[in-house]
C-alpha cells in the first residue's frame, strides 16, 4: 500500500520534471543548443507570475496567461540577439553564454526579490485531493501531471502536424537546404526558444504553487530537466515525459526510505539508466 502510494506520488512528481524538461528537449531537438540557463529561466517565470499576482490580485492560473506572452517575447529576444550569434560548430560559446546568463538571472533576481522564499497562492485548490480507493492524490499534483501530458501532446502536434513543425524539422535536418525553401533559420530558432519559455512558464506555475522557491534553486531544476531529457532519449518529447517519471519515481522511492536521499536517488537512477542505455530509452532513429 505504502509502495503504491509512493510510486503514485513519484509519477505525479515526474509530471513536474517533464514540464521542466520539455522546453529544453524542444530547443535541443531543433538547434542542438543546451541552455544552461533553463532552470533559472523557469525561476524567472515564477517571479514574473508572482509579480503579476501581487500587482493585479489575479489567481496564478490566470496570471500565467499574461506571463506566457512576456516569456515568449523574452525567449525570442534572447535567441535573436544573443544565442543566434554564438550557435555554430564550436560548442563552447553557446555553453558559456548560457552559463553567464544563468549567473546573471540568478543574481538579478536576488537583488530584485532578495533571497527570501516565495510561494504562489492558488487558493483552496491546493488542499483538495481525490480519493481513488487505493491512493489519495492531491488535485495540484494531478493537475501538474495532466498539464505535462497536455504540453507534450501539444508540442508533438505542432512538431508533426503543422507547417511550423515542418520548418522546425527541416531546419534541424539541414539548415542550408532549409534556407533554399525560403526558411530563415534564425527566425525558426527564435520561435522555438519562445515556445520553450512558454512551457517554462507553465512549469513555473506548478513549481511556485506546489512549493517554496527562491532565486538560487534554478540550477537544481536544470539538472532534473537534463536528466529527464537524456533518460528519454534526445529529441523525443514523449521520451522526455517518461524520463521525468523515472526521475520522479526514483526520488519518491529514495525519499520514502530517508528524506535526505531524495535528490541523490534521482541522480543515481539517471546514472544507472545511462550506463545501461547510453542513448536513453527512446532514441531518435536518425541522430
Amino acid at each position, binding site marked *: 500500500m505504502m509502495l503504491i502510494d509512493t510510486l503514485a506520488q513519484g509519477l505525479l512528481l515526474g509530471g513536474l520534471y517533464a514540464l521542466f524538461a520539455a522546453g529544453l528537449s524542444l530547443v535541443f531537438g531543433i538547434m542542438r543548443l543546451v541552455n544552461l540557463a533553463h532552470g533559472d529561466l523557469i525561476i524567472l517565470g515564477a517571479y514574473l507570475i508572482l509579480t503579476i499576482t501581487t500587482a493585479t490580485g489575479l489567481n496564478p492560473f490566470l496570471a500565467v496567461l499574461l506571463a506566457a506572452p512576456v516569456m515568449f517575447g523574452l525567449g525570442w529576444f534572447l535567441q535573436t540577439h544573443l544565442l543566434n550569434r554564438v550557435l555554430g560548430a564550436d560548442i563552447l560559446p553557446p555553453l558559456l553564454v548560457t552559463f553567464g546568463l544563468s549567473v546573471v538571472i540568478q543574481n538579478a533576481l536576488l537583488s530584485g526579490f532578495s533571497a527570501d522564499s516565495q510561494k504562489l497562492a492558488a487558493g483552496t485548490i491546493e488542499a483538495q485531493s481525490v480519493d481513488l480507493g487505493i491512493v489519495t492524490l492531491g488535485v495540484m499534483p494531478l493537475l501538474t501531471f495532466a498539464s505535462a501530458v497536455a504540453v507534450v501532446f501539444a508540442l508533438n502536434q505542432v512538431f508533426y502536424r503543422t*507547417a511550423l513543425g*515542418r*520548418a522546425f*524539422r*527541416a531546419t*534541424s*535536418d*539541414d539548415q*542550408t*537546404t*532549409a*534556407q*533554399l*525553401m*525560403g*526558411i*530563415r533559420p534564425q527566425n525558426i530558432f527564435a520561435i522555438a526558444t519562445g515556445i520553450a519559455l512558454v512551457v517554462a512558464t507553465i512549469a513555473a506555475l506548478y513549481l511556485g504553487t506546489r512549493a517554496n522557491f527562491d532565486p538560487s534553486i534554478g540550477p537544481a531544476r536544470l539538472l532534473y530537466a537534463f536528466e529527464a531529457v537524456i533518460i528519454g532519449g534526445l529529441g523525443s518529447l514523449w521520451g522526455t515525459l517518461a524520463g521525468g517519471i523515472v526521475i520522479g519515481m526514483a526520488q519518491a522511492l529514495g525519499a520514502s526510505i530517508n528524506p535526505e536521499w531524495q535528490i541523490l536517488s534521482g541522480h543515481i537512477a539517471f546514472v544507472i539508466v545511462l550506463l545501461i542505455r547510453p542513448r536513453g530509452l527512446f532514441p531518435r532513429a*536518425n541522430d
Partner: protein
Amino acid sequence: MTTLLDIAGLTAHYGDFQALFGVDLTLAEGETVAIIGANGAGKTTLMRAITGVAKVTAGSVMLAGEDITRLPAPDIMTRGIAMVPEGRRLFPSLSVEENLLIGAHARRGNGYWTLERVQTLFPILKERRHNPGTALSGGQQQMVAIGRALMSNPSVLLCDELSLGLAPVIIKEIYAAFPQIKASGTSIIVVEQDIGQALRVADHVHCMMEGRITLSGRPADLSRDAIHDAYFGVSHA
C-alpha cells in the same frame, strides 16, 4: 522575349580561391538555358552564387529588374527563384508529402503548382507520400526535389546536376516533365554534365571551364567539336 534573370560580371570566392571570374548570363521569360562543363568548372558555384549561398565578391544578379545580389538565401527564394540542389538534399525527418509541402514555404500568391498537380506530374510521389523522403530510390528522390522546388511557384527554376548518379532511363523520365514545367510559365536553368541531355532540353547552351563561360549559343548552332573543345579545354591551334 523580356529578360527575367540578368547576371553580369559575377565573381565568387571560397576563401582565397576564386571560383567564378566575371560570368555574364541572361535568362529570358519562358526560356530554358543549360550550363555544361566538367567537374570543378564552377557550375555549382554559379548556382550557389545566384541563390545567395556562396559569397559574391563582384558583379550583380538582377531578377525581373530587381537587384538581388548578396541578399540572404531565404529572401532570394521568396522573390521567385527555386533550386533543386545537387544531391537532392531531401529532409530525412520529413515524409515525401511533407518534403513537397515545405517547398511551399517560399510561395508567393497563387500559382499553377499545387500538391495535387505535382503529384499528377510524378504519380509515384502520391503513392509513396507517407514514406520518409530518403527511403525512395535516387530517381524518385530527384522527383521529390523537383516537386519541392515547384511548390513555391518559382519564376526561375534552377536544377543542379539532375542526372548525377541516375540510370539513363530514369533521366529520360525526369526530363519528360520539363515541357509541362515550361508550360506553367517557369523559366529554367539546368546544370548538366550530360551534354546530350542538355542539348535536347535547352534553348540556349553555355559551356563553362575554370570559372568562366567559354562558349555560348543555340544547340543547333554549336558544333560537336566546338563543345568538345570548350568542355575539355583542348585547343586545335
